[in-house]
């Protein structure tokens, strides 16, 4: 036994270190994924007996207009949420100066990420309030009519995304600030000697060195956009009449909410969301794998 251990210690040790993590991950993430997939094949109210219905939940999903609204909103979220990345980049570039008290400003800019998303949602609800909200007071100062953003089926998703961009920009900003610290000063010097300035310097010298930071920011932003739930639940409760729903919220409504007793249907929606996420997860894992291999 001891001889075996001594001989294979190098290759076995990593597995032993990883074992608790793998165990937790398997029990709390991997197995529940398969359980959800299995539940999506049943009709179940969460309280009584399960009834096997095969793929009928998915067939019903195809005809459900609320599902298509949610899917559409998820795509809008995915595309517009990515605005947090350039916004975070410019905030980081702006704050990357050695002015007195810059640390205070960095903290203030980071603050939105620290507070709970529920609080962000509440604050923006008040901001958008048709009667007393800041937005409409601001519009009124220009002589424009007040807009009820959260009550308007066309504008509501954009209004909520705007609220979500506030903390997400702060997060991307921190990633870039750390990245900017690691930018090689010699390369900047060399570029300056070659007369590079401003935007050219940014695009050709700084940005390529920020690639790891951009990569992480992208991963987190995409996953955050697909997972968005708190803001929608707080700001509009899926409304008006379901126009701001996203897949995560629709799943909650169908399976867990006050009027939702359809676990199977909710699980089917969750599986669809998972498959969408798998596209991105696979792409990212593949990229990371290639980077590790040094390609």
């Amino acid at each position, binding site marked *: 036994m001891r001889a075996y251990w001594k001989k294979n210690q190098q290759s076995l040790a990593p597995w032993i270190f990883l074992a608790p993590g793998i165990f937790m991950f398997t029990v709390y993430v991997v197995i529940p994924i398969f359980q959800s997939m299995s539940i999506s094949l049943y009709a179940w109210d*969460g309280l009584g007996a399960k009834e096997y219905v095969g793929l009928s939940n998915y067939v019903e999903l195809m005809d459900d207009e609320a599902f298509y609204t949610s899917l559409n909103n998820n795509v809008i979220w995915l595309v517009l949420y990515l605005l947090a990345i350039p916004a975070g980049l410019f905030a980081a570039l702006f704050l990357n100066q050695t002015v007195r008290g810059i640390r205070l400003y960095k903290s203030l800019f980071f603050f939105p990420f620290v507070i709970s998303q529920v609080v962000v949602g509440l604050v923006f609800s008040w901001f958008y309030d048709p009667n007393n909200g800041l937005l409409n007071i601001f519009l009124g100062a220009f002589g424009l009519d007040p807009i009820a953003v959260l009550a308007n089926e066309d504008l509501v998703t954009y209004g909520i995304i705007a609220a979500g961009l506030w903390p997400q920009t702060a997060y991307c900003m921190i990633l870039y600030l750390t990245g900017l610290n690691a930018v090689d000063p010699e390369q900047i010097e060399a570029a300056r000697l070659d007369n590079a300035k401003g935007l050219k310097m940014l695009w050709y010298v700084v940005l390529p060195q920020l690639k790891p930071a951009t990569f992480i920011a992208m991963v987190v932003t995409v996953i955050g956009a697909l997972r968005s739930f708190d803001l929608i639940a707080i700001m509009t409760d899926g409304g008006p009449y379901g126009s701001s729903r996203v897949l995560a919220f629709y799943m909650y409504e169908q399976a867990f*909410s*006050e009027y939702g007793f359809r676990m199977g249907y909710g699980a089917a929606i969750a599986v669809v969301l998972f498959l969408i996420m798998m596209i991105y997860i696979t792409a990212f894992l593949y990229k990371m794998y290639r980077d590790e291999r040094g390609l």
Partner: protein
Amino acid sequence: MFHRLRTLTAGLAASTMLTSAVFAGELVINTDTSDPAPKAAFEALIAGFEAENPDVTVTWNLFDHEGYKTSIRNFLTADAPDVANWYAGNRMLPYVNAGLFEDVTDVWDENGLRESLASAEGSMTIDGKIWGVPYTYYQWGVYYRKDIFEANNISVPTNWEEFLAAGETLKAAGVTPITIGTKYLWTAGGVFDYLNLRTNGYEFHMALGRGEIPWTDDRVRATMANWNQLLEAGFFVENHAAYSWQEALAPMVQGDAAMYIMGNFAVAPLREAGLTDDQLGFFQFPEINPDVAMAEEAPTDTLHIPTNASNKEDARRFLAYLARADVQTQINETLGQLPINGASTVGDDKFLQAGYEMLSATDGGIAQFFDRDFPAEMAKSGMEGFQEFMVKPERLDAILDRLERVRLRVYQ
């Protein structure tokens, strides 16, 4: 040091074993009465029960009102309390069907509750058995700004024409007739309920709730046509889809709106906001169809025993205590609502008296509210449809078609 560690772990193990044992005479109650008045009412109720039954200690777990609606599904199966509060009618149906509520017909029979709680027996009965004990209900109707009506010489409307005329006068005076907040949808259900009960009657409304009538039926369209009259006349506040019912109180308090179709629980916050009894009044929702008997909405709150409870004996004693006339009088005084027990006295408040008179004289039937008379999924789609209709009345056909499709799937 090692010796101390061993005694410490032994002590910890022993104490955890002690806490997991359930003592006889311990009653666990879970409620969602987190608002100030219901909380005070339950404190008094539990104190009174413990005083009369010194052999029972009550552990009361108070949940947040909204969070309770999801927690109840968990705690009824795992770690069930001995008593839990919930609602009557279709709201308790999923739990009754899943066998999670205890049949308490014996409590009703032993304590003569079929006589004293007669008005609520129907809404507590499923499959011929009774599943809980109701302790309060409250009226719904139109709460209005008496002073604004008087200032504009508007008398209380008793029929549809007068109601529309009153709205016109209010609009001319720059006041929005009705305030409403539909962000959480159920308030629109209340408006639909009253319009449907007044246009087509209680039996039709209940049949619609049982899924026996298609949503595309002409009589449903008649109700929606009446609603459309109100929408076209600009009766409701703008942007109601962005407001909760509490936020919609503000226009009424500030005098920008004059009426609120609400339950009696709206009175307490309106009074707290500063409206006096001279400014605030109540009237029964006006008659629309003279051929139809006037029916009212009066949602009932109830207490149940979970099937997985450990101390059902004391739980039954608690329910019997709750059903007594004097106990119900006391609870409802604090709650500001109406007792179910026929022998209880109604509080001296003018709104309670008005509600009591109205409900006692109701021969048209008492409904429980849209999301309690209709099954959960139908209720959700229905209320969403109503909110959409209120904002986009031109989509009526699409909305009714969608509701019809939901009906065909839900009622099987």
